[in-house]
C-alpha cells in the first residue's frame, strides 16, 4: 500500500487536484460566492458560443473525414490484398504522423498550401490555376480541417486496425456458402460488427481535435477563434476580464471531451465482444 504513495500523491497533486479546482472555480464568482452565472454566460456570451460552435464543427468535420478516409486506408492495407510490408510501413508511418501535430505541422501546411506554398505555386505556374481565387484559404475552416486530417487519419488507422483484424475469415466463408454476395457480407455482417468500433473511433478523433491548440495557434494566430484558442488568450491576459469565466470555458471543454471519450470507452467494450 505504502509503495503506491508516490504515484498517488503525484497524480493527485499534478493531475486531479489542479483540474478539479479549476472545474470547481467555474461555479464561483470573483468574490467567492457560489453561482451558476459563469456557466450561463457560456451559453449567452456570443463570442464564447460562436467559438464553442466553431470548435465543435471543426472537430466534427475532421473526425468524420479522418474516420472515413482512415477506415479505407486501414481496409486497403489489412484486407485489400496489398503486400505484407505495406502494412508495416503504413502502421509505422501512422505512429509518426499521429504524433506529428502542433507547430511543425502548421508550418508544413503553410509551405504547401499557403499563398506561396509549393502546391499553390505549382498549380499556378503549370496549370494556370489560382487556388486562392477559388476562395480557398489555408487560414480557414476548410484549411484547418485539412491540416487536422494529417493527424486524424493516422490515428483512425491505428485505432481501427485491431477491429479489422478481428473480422474472422469464417464469417466471410459462411456468407459465401449460404449464397451471400460481397454486398450482403458487408451490409449484414462486417459493417454491423464494425459499427461500434467505427463510431467509437470517430468520437475519439473528435475529442482529439477538440483539445488541440498548438496547430491552430501556429497556423492562424487568433484569426480563427476556436475555443482552445479563446482559452489560451484568456490565460495569457484575462481578455474576458473575468477569470472565473475562463474556468467555465475549461469546464465546458472537459464536459465535451469527457462525453465523447466516455462514449468511446463504452462503445469499445461493446465491440470487444466480437473480438474475443
Amino acid at each position, binding site marked *: 500500500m505504502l509503495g*503506491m504513495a508516490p504515484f498517488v500523491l503525484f497524480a493527485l497533486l499534478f493531475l486531479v487536484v489542479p*483540474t478539479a*479546482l479549476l472545474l470547481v472555480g467555474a461555479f464561483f464568482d470573483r468574490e467567492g460566492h457560489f453561482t451558476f452565472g459563469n456557466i450561463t454566460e457560456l451559453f449567452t456570451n456570443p463570442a464564447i458560443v460562436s467559438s464553442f460552435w466553431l470548435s465543435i464543427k471543426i472537430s466534427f468535420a475532421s473526425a468524420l473525414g479522418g474516420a472515413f478516409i482512415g477506415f479505407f486506408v486501414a481496409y486497403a492495407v489489412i484486407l485489400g490484398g496489398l503486400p505484407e510490408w505495406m502494412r508495416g510501413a503504413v502502421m509505422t508511418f501512422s505512429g509518426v504522423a499521429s*504524433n506529428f501535430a502542433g507547430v511543425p505541422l502548421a508550418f508544413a501546411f503553410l509551405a*504547401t498550401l499557403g499563398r506561396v506554398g509549393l502546391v499553390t505555386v505549382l498549380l499556378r505556374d503549370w496549370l494556370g490555376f489560382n487556388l486562392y481565387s477559388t476562395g480557398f484559404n489555408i487560414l480557414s475552416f476548410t484549411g484547418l480541417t485539412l491540416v487536422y486530417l494529417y493527424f486524424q487519419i493516422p490515428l483512425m488507422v491505428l485505432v481501427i486496425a485491431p477491429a479489422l483484424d478481428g473480422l474472422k475469415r469464417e464469417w466471410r466463408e459462411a456468407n459465401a456458402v449460404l449464397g451471400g454476395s460481397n454486398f450482403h457480407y458487408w451490409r449484414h455482417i462486417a459493417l454491423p460488427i464494425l459499427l461500434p468500433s467505427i463510431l467509437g473511433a470517430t468520437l475519439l478523433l473528435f475529442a482529439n481535435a477538440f483539445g*488541440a491548440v498548438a496547430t491552430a495557434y501556429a497556423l492562424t494566430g487568433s484569426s480563427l477563434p476556436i475555443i482552445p484558442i479563446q482559452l489560451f488568450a484568456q490565460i495569457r491576459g484575462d481578455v474576458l476580464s473575468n477569470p472565473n469565466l475562463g474556468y467555465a470555458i475549461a469546464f465546458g*471543454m472537459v464536459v465535451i471531451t469527457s462525453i465523447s471519450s466516455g462514449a468511446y470507452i463504452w462503445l469499445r467494450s461493446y465491440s470487444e465482444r466480437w473480438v474475443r
Partner: protein
Amino acid sequence: MKKSSVLSWLIILLAISYFIIPLLSTFEFSLRMLRGQYSFEAYRVVFAQAEFQHAFIRSILLALATIVLSIVLVVPAAYLVRLRLPSWRSPVEFVTLLPLVIPAIIIVFGYIRMFNSSSWLPLTDSEWTTDLLLTFGYVVLALPYMYRSVDAGLRAIDVKTLTEAAQSLGASSFTILWQVILPNIRSGVLSGSFIAFAIVIGEFTFASLLNRPVFGTYLQLIGANRAYEPSALAIVAFIITWACMGLLQLVGRSRGARAAR
C-alpha cells in the same frame, strides 16, 4: 480479388500523396534561402542561433528528466498493482487515461491557478521551479503511454516468480524492483520513453503558458518572423519524431524476437 487490390493501391497512393506532399514542400522550401540555388543555408543559420541552441537543449533536458521521473513513478506503481493490489487496477488505469481526456491546455491552466506566485506552493516563482513544474506536466502528458508500455512489459514476464525468487535470495524491495524487474521489462520502458521523448520535444502549450523557452515555443516565435528557418525546423522536428518511432519499432521487434527464441 484482383479488382479489390487495384482499388487498394489507388487508396494508398492517394493517401501517400496527401502525407508526402506537405513534407516535400516543406523540405523544398527550407532549401531555398539562398536565391537561385538549393542549399542547407536555413539549417546552418538556425542551428547557429544561440536562442535556438538553448531552447533545443532545454527541450532535450526536459525530455530526459520526464523519462527518468516517469520511470521512477510508474514502474513501482504498475508492479505493485500487478503483484499485490489487483483491486487498484481499474482506478489506476482510469487516472492514467485522464490526460487523454482532459486537454493539455486545461491541465496547465490548473497549474497556473494552483501553483502561482500567491499560492501555497509558488512553483512558478523562479525559472528552475517552473522547469520542474513543466517536467511534472510532461510526466502527466506521457503517463497514458508510459503506464501502458510498462504494464504490457510486466504482463509478458512472471512477476510473482521473479519476486519470490529474489526474495528467497534475500533481496530488498528496492533491489527487486530496480535490479530484477526493471531489466526484464526494459523493452516496455524503452517504448514508453521514446513516446515521451517525441511528446516533449514538440510540445508547445505547456511551455508557452508557463513562459519557458523550449523548442516548440522557439518554433512558433520564429514562424512569425522568418521565412525559411521555420520550414527547416519543421523538418528537424519531423526527423526526431521519425527517429523516436523507428526506435520504438526496433525495440518492439527485438522483444518479439526474444519471445520467439
